[in-house]
């Protein structure tokens, strides 16, 4: 059973890895600022998934908090960037 | 007795930190109160430093090395604070200059920044910490405290030139800090320890790969310190920064340049002195050469500059160069003489920095007024609020003080500058000891150094005299308004130089003891490694995660 699980996990990890890569490519390519911010936000989310998988793979709950922090606060820099686009400054 | 003496080691760091925090709380406009508190803190620091100075030279601690286990963890695991003669000396120097700078700042500068007082205390904490910590990474932390505080102080009273200077100063120091970290990391990778004493022990028995890492790490680390001590070609920021800094801050900057030298001296003699490796010979020579280049550059710069602030900067570079070369030389005699030079030149250049502002008042009354009003524009209190008594014969005082500073910087008799240069020359010519005739002990580098120091003295004479004649003997010199709080610090620093001259015998005897202790690293190492923790800490057996 472990092998099945490991294979599935490996597959999932690979997928998330690729997702990370796609997000990063979008981040590089742009072309507009909003694309980049979107890509960055997705990158954060993908990273969160990645961390979750890491936790499963290492059978350890230590990694959970990092994912929690991303889930809770990963959006902050994205909305800061977005607000910058909307208003030209983030705190008025 | 021992217990309280031990606690005293802590105070140079803790006192300023506490006072700084206290001063932050007083974020009102009560300038007088804040100044009073700050002064109290600084004076308490001075008393502490003097007490430590006395303790390290007495028999309270074995071999005059006091050690303190912060958090009660033995070396090399915890952080050890160590005070030996050199550290105590530097602490005292720091406290003295700080007192002078603080009193000087009373009239004007302490009001020109919001958190001047807290930053000032933080700066002291940083400098003192760098002097007494026995841990490499902790040293980094204290360096950062010191630098961060100095950034803040440097920026007092926003002026474009100050901002420009800070832009350089900050970036260069940030890069230097990165070097510092890289170096420390490599040393940790090599030795597996951060404690300097432990490092010295481990360095003696390293295998090849560890040695490689250690040496590369040490080289990179050295660059960080050399940048801070303004070695050529890493020290171009210094004159610009000095010229831009507010005088009391400038005085503290003078001290900070010496921190780099101090650390080099400490690490060099502690970790690398006993090893007969190629690194030691090569880097010793490299250091001497670099010091000489710095000296030459400082000399050229001093000759070429017209502005007083830059002159002070180049004087500091000259003194750095001299010290670096002396450290590279490494002989006990030379180190002892270099310490004398360090004390004298630091005091003098600091006094000079303070003088600059006063002298500028003679030179360009209109410009000075303009600067004053510009400051006043942004200052909370009225800067003209009379503080202290206006001293008479200001011109004569300034003239005398300027001459005294110039003499010390140029190393002319009769003040301490001459004594310092004399001892240095003497040590260079007689490195093996008192007048032992050995032609080969004074190699070509020593000769070059001698010549360069003489030349730099000459350049200082020419340059400072040119400036002094132009300023004090100019026809449109106006008698400046000078207050006691401004005259006193300058007099204090110069008085110390004078007493160093008169008491040259005891002082140099003390420095000899200091240097000889430095050349016996085992004293330091044994003390640090043997100090035991206070037993009986509650062992937390019931801890559950």
């Amino acid at each position: 059973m472990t092998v099945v699980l490991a294979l599935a996990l490996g597959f999932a990890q690979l997928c998330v890895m690729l997702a990370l890569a796609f997000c990063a490519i979008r981040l590089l390519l742009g072309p507009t600022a909003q694309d980049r911010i979107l890509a960055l936000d997705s990158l954060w989310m993908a990273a969160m998934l990645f961390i979750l998988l890491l936790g499963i793979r290492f059978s350890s709950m230590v990694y959970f908090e990092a994912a929690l922090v991303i889930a809770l606060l990963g959006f902050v820099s994205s909305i800061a960037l977005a607000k910058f686009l909307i208003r030209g400054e983030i705190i008025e | 007795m021992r217990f309280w003496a031990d606690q005293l080691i802590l105070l140079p760091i803790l006192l300023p930190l506490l006072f700084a925090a206290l001063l932050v709380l007083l974020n009102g406009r009560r300038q007088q109160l804040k100044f009073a508190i700050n002064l109290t803190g600084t004076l308490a620091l001075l008393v502490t430093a003097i007490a430590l100075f006395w303790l390290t030279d007495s028999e309270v601690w074995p071999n005059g090395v006091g050690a303190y286990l912060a958090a009660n963890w033995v070396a090399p695991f915890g952080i050890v604070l160590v005070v030996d003669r050199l550290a105590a000396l530097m602490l005292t120097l720091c406290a003295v200059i700080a007192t002078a700078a603080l009193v000087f700042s009373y009239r004007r500068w302490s009001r020109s920044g919001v958190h001047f007082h807290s930053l000032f205390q933080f700066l002291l904490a940083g400098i003192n910490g760098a002097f007494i910590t026995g841990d490499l990474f902790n040293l980094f932390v204290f360096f950062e405290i010191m630098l961060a505080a100095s950034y803040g102080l440097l920026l007092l009273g926003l002026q474009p030139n100050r901002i420009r200077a800070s832009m350089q100063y900050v970036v260069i120091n940030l890069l230097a800090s990165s070097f510092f970290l890289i170096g420390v990391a490599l040393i940790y990778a090599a030795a597996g320890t951060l404690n300097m004493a432990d490092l010295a022990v481990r360095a003696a028995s390293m295998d090849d790969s560890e040695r490689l890492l250690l040496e590369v790490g040490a080289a990179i680390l050295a660059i960080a310190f050399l940048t801070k001590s303004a070695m050529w070609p890493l020290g171009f920021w210094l004159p610009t920064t000095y010229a831009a800094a507010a005088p009391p801050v400038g005085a503290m900057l003078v001290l900070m340049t010496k921190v780099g030298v101090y650390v080099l001296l400490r690490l060099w003699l502690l970790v690398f002195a006993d090893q007969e490796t190629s690194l030691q010979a090569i880097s010793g020579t490299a250091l001497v050469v670099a010091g000489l280049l710095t000296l030459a550059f400082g000399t050229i710069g001093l000759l070429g500059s017209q502005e007083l602030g830059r002159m002070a900067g180049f004087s500091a570079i000259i003194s750095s160069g001299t010290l670096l070369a002396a450290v590279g030389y490494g002989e006990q005699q030379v180190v002892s003489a270099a310490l004398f030079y360090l004390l004298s030149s630091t005091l003098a250049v600091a006094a000079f920095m303070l003088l600059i502002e006063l002298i500028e008042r003679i030179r360009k009354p209109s410009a000075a007024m303009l600067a004053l009003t510009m400051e006043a524009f942004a200052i909370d209190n009225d800067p003209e609020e009379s503080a202290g008594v206006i001293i008479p014969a200001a011109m004569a005082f300034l003239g005398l003080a300027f001459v005294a500073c110039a003499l010390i910087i140029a190393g002319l008799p009769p003040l301490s500058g001459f004594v310092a240069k004399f001892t240095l020359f003497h040590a260079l010519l007689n490195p093996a000891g008192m007048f032992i005739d050995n032609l080969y002990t004074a190699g070509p580098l020593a000769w070059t150094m001698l010549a360069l120091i003489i030349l730099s003295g000459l350049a200082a004479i020419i340059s400072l005299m040119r400036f002094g004649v132009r300023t004090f003997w100019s026809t449109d010199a106006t008698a400046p308004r000078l207050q006691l709080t401004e005259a006193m610090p300058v007099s204090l620093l110069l008085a110390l130089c004078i007493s160093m001259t008169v008491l040259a015998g005891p002082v140099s005897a003390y420095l000899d003891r200091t240097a000889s202790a430095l050349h016996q690293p085992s004293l330091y190492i044994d003390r640090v490694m043997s100090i035991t923790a206070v037993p009986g800490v509650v062992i937390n057996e019931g801890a559950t995660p």
Partner: protein
Amino acid sequence: MEAVIAIAIGVMFASGVWLILRPRTFQVIIGLLLISYAVNMFIFIMGRLSINKPPLTLDSPVEVGMFADPVTQALVLTAIVIGFATSALYLVLLLTSRGLTGTDHVDGKEPRQ
């Protein structure tokens, strides 16, 4: 893995270095950020690489080999904080410089052409 991380550090450091040699303050601050990443990673790997060995000694007795070197981690933690603080300071400084000198050149004045 070792090679990858070494190259990674090198690349970040190089990018940072290239940026701090540029003339605009924004480039410099980005460069400093990258350099601090590289340096933090560098300090970190001085404790060597270890996978799934976080230094959490949840139960005693402790088997030392089962944990990553905690010292470098503690050092990096301090270094991250200090790096954060100093970049904040530089940022504000560059803003002030921009405000007072009217340019975002690192020297506070545009170079003469």
